[in-house]
Structures are given as structure tokens and as C-alpha cells.
């Protein structure tokens, strides 16, 4: 569940981050282009003014000083200027190159040789400023030029330092805010998704708890009217319908049980009365066998209804804590004499107390059924091995014998009920009943023939949800 919230918020944040980044890149390009356009306009204007001044100033001793002064003044009006604390002007240079390419006039930091060299290496056309990398400067210059009447060239260069600084400032500011926004967005998305998913998780937890027999509870609902709340309402509606049909089934089986049991009770009572009235043994015999038949019929009725309800997942359980180990020992105590009378050996391998939460009555009957099965179907001289252990967080009960195993015609329909081997005298509900009870408790049964012969029946039941089942030396 945590991973879903993570995934959703990660993807949402990624999309948001990429989107804002793209928008910023576009803005950045636009701003950079605009700054350059302004720089170029200034450069072109200034170089023209300087060219004009240089053209009109007589080429005397004062020429250098006059033009230099004008160039210095121009340098003070540099656009995008951020800092002016350094008095030495290293962001602008003015250079006049003679027709022969010699340095005629230089205003700027240094001696201008490197700049001239760079200018010579790159052709700079008038009215088309371009970038120029100068040896000794890490930041390139933007350089504009103009051709004088006397064949010399005037170059005006502006360091791109300030432009780059503006852009860097913009980027830093953006990245800071962007990170903050992305984190904030991630937090919001994560929080809301998790809140929503927590509700979904609560619903699914409640739904799984409702499980087999506990149909009274409902999944939690909220006051909001979103899809999740809708889901909870839908689930609850479904549970209402299931509960009502379950209730109907119970009513049917209950009234069926009642309608059959009342006459059975009356018949049994009458039989018992006539039994106590009968004085001769010959009169007793038919009454006794009638009572026995009646008891078998009652048992069949009980099991049939249990199997029917369990198949509809409607078996009612009243769970208590139950120690399977203790129960098995009592059962073995009960069945051992009958087994040894038949020449069957019983062996128990148990790892000690094993607690489950189960309906004691049903579990008793289920395990008695397992023993009855072995007692009825095993020929003399066989061994039944019973194992009880914890396996994969379930209580695993295994009945194994070295008898003839299930007959082929029975094997395919083991759990369906009303199937029995030709030699069996039961009503064939045994395994169906076992399966029904175990499934009602959320466990599972498997029954098969062992490769080396004999029957293997394993019953897996959920453990009680307590730490008492830690292995105990026994």
C-alpha cells in the first residue's frame, strides 16, 4: 500500500517537475535572447557614436585622449550592469585597428594585444555583433565593429559577464523555488494519496475480516462522496445482500432441521417407551435396531445440513481457543482400544501444544470422523501415523496409513459426499463433512493415495492469532 502511494506521488511529481522545467527552459532562452538583443543594440549604437567621434576628431596628439574619454564615458552606461564597485573598467574595451592591422588606440584593461589577436582570428562584420573569446579572459566578449573612412576599424567589446550573471541569478532563483515547489507538491500528492489509500486499505482489511462466517460487520464508510466512499457503500450493499441470502439459507436449514427433528424426537421417545414396556428379549430386538437406525438417520441429517451450509459458506461457528495437541491425545485415548482390537497401530508425532481458534463442537466431530474413517476402512495389521505441526503459519494435521488407499471409483469424488466405496457401510459423508468443517474455518483438506500405498489426508487450519504457538519443548 505504501508503494502505491509512493508510485503515484513519484510519477505525479516527476510530471510536474518536467513540465515546470520545460517552461523555465523556454523562458530562459527568451530572456537570454532579449538581453543579447539589448546588448547588441547598445553596442551598435555606441560603436557608431564612437566611429563618428573618431572620424571628426583631428588626428593630432589629442586624438587618443578625446576618443579614449568618450569610450570611457560609454563604458559607464553599460546595460544590465549589476556592480560598479570596481573602478577599473574591465567589462568594456575600445580598440582601433589600423589598415595594416596594427593597434592604433586601446582603451580597456590590459594592453589589448590579446584582444587584437582574437579579432584578427575572427572576422567581425560591421552591424553584426558576435561573441569573441579572448585569451586570458574566461568570459567571452560581445564585439561590434565599424569601418572608418581611412580604412581602419573600430571595435567596441562588452564582456558578457553581467549578462551571464543575470541569467545565473535567474537560474539559481528558479532552481531553489523549483526544488521547493517539487518537494511541496510531492508532499501534498503523497499525503492525499496515502490518506485515500489508507481508507481503501481499511476497507479491504475490514472486508477480509468479514470472511466466512462473520457477516454482521461492515466496511468503514466516510462522509465524503468520492469514489472510495462509493466503493465502501457498494461493498456494504453487497454484504447486505449476501447476509440476507445467508439468513434465508439458515432459516431454510433451521426449519428443515426442526421439521425433521421434532418427529424424530417423538418417534424415538415412543420407541424408548415401548422398549421399557417390552418384557421379552425377542420383542426388544426390532425396537433396538429401530432406535439405532434412527440415531444413524439423525447423524446423517446433521452432517448433511452441515455439509450443505458449509458448501454455501454459511456454516455458523462459535469460536473458542482449542489446543489441537491436547484434543488429539484425548481422541487417541478414546479410539486406541478400538484400533488395537482391530490390530491397527496408532502413532502420534506432535510438536507440542498448538492453539487454534475454532468451533470446538465441529472440530471434535471433524477429527472423530478422521478416526472413524481409519477405523472403518483399514484392514488388520496396519499403522496409522498422525502428525501435528506448524507449517507455513498453519496448523497442519496429517493422517497417514499403510492400508489399501482410496478405491479408484471413490477417489475422484472424495469431497462431494454421498460417495462411498463398495465395502463401506457409512453414508459416505465423512470426507465431505471434514472438508466442509475445515473450509468453514478457513483451512483446506487434501486427500490422496500415497505412492507407497495407503491414504494421506492433510488438514491445514489457521493458527490462533497469538504468540502462544511458539515452539515449546515437549
Amino acid at each position, binding site marked *: 500500500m505504501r508503494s502505491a502511494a509512493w508510485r503515484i506521488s513519484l510519477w505525479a511529481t516527476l510530471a510536474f517537475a518536467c513540465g515546470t522545467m520545460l517552461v523555465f527552459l523556454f523562458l530562459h532562452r527568451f530572456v537570454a535572447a532579449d538581453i543579447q538583443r539589448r546588448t547588441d543594440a547598445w553596442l551598435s549604437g555606441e560603436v557608431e557614436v564612437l566611429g563618428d567621434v573618431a572620424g571628426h576628431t583631428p588626428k593630432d596628439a589629442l586624438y587618443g585622449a578625446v576618443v579614449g574619454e568618450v569610450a570611457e564615458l560609454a563604458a559607464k552606461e553599460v546595460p544590465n550592469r549589476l556592480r560598479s564597485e570596481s573602478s577599473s573598467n574591465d567589462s568594456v574595451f575600445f580598440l582601433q585597428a589600423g589598415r595594416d592591422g596594427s593597434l592604433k588606440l586601446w582603451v580597456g584593461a590590459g594592453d589589448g594585444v590579446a584582444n587584437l589577436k582574437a579579432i584578427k582570428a575572427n572576422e567581425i562584420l560591421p552591424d553584426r555583433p558576435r561573441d569573441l573569446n579572448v585569451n586570458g579572459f574566461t568570459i567571452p566578449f560581445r564585439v561590434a565593429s565599424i569601418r572608418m573612412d581611412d580604412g581602419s576599424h573600430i571595435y567596441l567589446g562588452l564582456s558578457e559577464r553581467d549578462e551571464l550573471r543575470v541569467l545565473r541569478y535567474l537560474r539559481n532563483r528558479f532552481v531553489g523555488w523549483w526544488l521547493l515547489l517539487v518537494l511541496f507538491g510531492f508532499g501534498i500528492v503523497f499525503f492525499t494519496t496515502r490518506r485515500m489509500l489508507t481508507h481503501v486499505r481499511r476497507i479491504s482489511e475490514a472486508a477480509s475480516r468479514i470472511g466466512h462466517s462473520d457477516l454482521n460487520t461492515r466496511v468503514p464508510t466516510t462522509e465524503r462522496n468520492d469514489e472510495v466512499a462509493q466503493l465502501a457503500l457498494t461493498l456494504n450493499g453487497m454484504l447486505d445482500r449476501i447476509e440476507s441470502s445467508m439468513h434465508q439459507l439458515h432459516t431454510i*436449514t*433451521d426449519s428443515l*432441521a*426442526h421439521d425433521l*427433528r*421434532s*418427529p*424424530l*424426537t*417423538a*418417534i*424415538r*421417545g*415412543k420407541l*424408548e*417407551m415401548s*422398549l421399557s414396556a417390552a418384557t421379552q428379549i425377542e420383542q*426388544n430386538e426390532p*425396537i*433396538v*435396531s*429401530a*432406535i*439405532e437406525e*434412527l*440415531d*444413524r438417520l*439423525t*447423524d446423517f441429517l*446433521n452432517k448433511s*445440513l*452441515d455439509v450443505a451450509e458449509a458448501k454455501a459458506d454459511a456454516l*455458523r461457528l*462459535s469460536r473458542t481457543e482449542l489446543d489441537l495437541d491436547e484434543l488429539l491425545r*484425548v481422541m487417541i*485415548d*478414546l*479410539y486406541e*482400544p*478400538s484400533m488395537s*482390537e482391530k490390530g491397527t497401530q496408532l502413532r502420534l508425532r506432535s510438536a507440542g501444544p498448538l492453539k487454534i481458534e475454532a468451533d470446538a*463442537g465441529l472440530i*471434535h*466431530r471433524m477429527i*472423530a470422523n478422521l*478416526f*472413524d474413517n481409519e*477405523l*472403518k476402512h483399514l484392514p488388520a495389521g496396519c499403522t496409522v501415523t498422525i502428525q501435528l505441526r506448524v507449517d507455513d503459519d498453519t496448523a497442519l494435521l496429517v493422517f497417514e496409513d499403510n492400508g489399501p488407499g482410496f478405491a479408484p471409483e471413490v477417489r475422484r469424488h472424495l469431497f462431494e459426499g454421498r460417495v462411498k466405496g463398495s465395502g463401506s457401510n*457409512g453414508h459416505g459423508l465423512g470426507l465431505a463433512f471434514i472438508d466442509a468443517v475445515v473450509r468453514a474455518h478457513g483451512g483446506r483438506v487434501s486427500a490422496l493415495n500415497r505412492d507407497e500405498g495407503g491414504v494421506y489426508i492433510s488438514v491445514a487450519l489457521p493458527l490462533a492469532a497469538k504468540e502462544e504457538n511458539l515452539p515449546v519443548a515437549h
Partner: protein
Amino acid sequence: MRLLLVEDEPDIRRFLQTSLEEAGYQVGAAADAKTAENLATEGTFDILIVDLGLPDKDGISLILRLRQMGVSAPVLILSARRSVDDRVRGLEQGGDDYLTKPFALAELLARLRNLLKRNRPSGNESTRLRVLDLELDLLRREASRSGQVLQLTPQEFVLLEYLCRNAGRVVTRSMILDMVWGMRIQPDTNVVDVHIYRLRGKVDGKGQQPLIRTLRGVGYVLKDR
């Protein structure tokens, strides 16, 4: 002993009334909850048998109503329902008992006796049980017949003790399973019979009068005379 029987099925009511009167109870019978309430106000009863499915009222509601009216006698609940209702379980913890239909008369009588015994202030519980020449020492868990100590397993001792406590009365297989092994099951094999058979082999030696009798179709009885 005055007993109030509340059962709507006429057949069952009639047979129960006859059998209970034979067993020595004075029976007041009611077919519905209203009659039962009237009978309960007219006289006092030592014990009640209440069927859960009454025409005019749920059996549990009737019991609760009677309790409100001050009837404190123990109740044996008869149920034709399949599983034991949680509410019945609740009542059972309050000192009452239940029995599912159909039942053996012997079991009904045994449960009635148990309820009456539970409710009566018990005097000094004897540490010895004696039936004819059979003697049980409950402290040392030892049984002897005609002075001869019997070699019994602990389980056989419990079984014999149960038979002795009900000496002269019929106990059924399901009662034995419930009281000795603590399980309400109906095995379709002869497990209980084999236990009785073994016990009989030890208790009824050669030349002695057989004490443990089998009543086919009903159960067993330990003779007390």
C-alpha cells in the same frame, strides 16, 4: 420434585410427561409461553424443561421473562436447531444446560439430575464411592472389588467413576463421551463399547456377579442391587 415442561409438539410433550412422571417428577406441562408463565406464577418448580421453538415466544425470551419473575430454578433447554445458539451458550454458563433433539430419555434424565445436584448446596463430598462390593477411592484413584484392587488406567477409572455415580441408572454412549471425554460427538463406530468391554473385563472377574450391563439401543447401567 416439581418440574415445568414447556413443549409445543403434543407427541413429544405427552411422551416426556409420561416418562418424567415415571421417573418420579411431578410434571406441569405447557404448550406455549403464556401457559408456562401462568403455571410459573401459580406454583414453584424445582426445575424447568423449555423447548426453544414455541409458537408464541422464543424459548430464550421465555426463560429471561421467567427469570425476571423471580423463577430461579435451573433450566434444561431443548433445541431442534442445529448449531447451539450463542445465547443458549450464555444461559448454559449461568448454570443451565441444553440438549439437542432427538435425544435419549436416559440422557435427559441424567442432565436433569446434574442440574438439580448443581443447584443444591452440596454437603460433604465423599471421597469414597461404594456400589455393592465395588469400591472407589477418589483420592487415591483406586478401585477395588471384594477387596481385590483392580488394575485400571486413569481413563478407565474416570469411566467407572461415572458409571458408579449413576449406578442403577442408564447412561448412554453420548453421555459417556460428553462426561468422560468431554466431547459431544456421535461416532458411527463402536469406540465406547470397546472401552466398556475392556472395563467389564477388569471389573467383572470370573465367578463374580456381572455389574456392568449393556442395554442394547439405550446404553449401559451399573447394577446397584
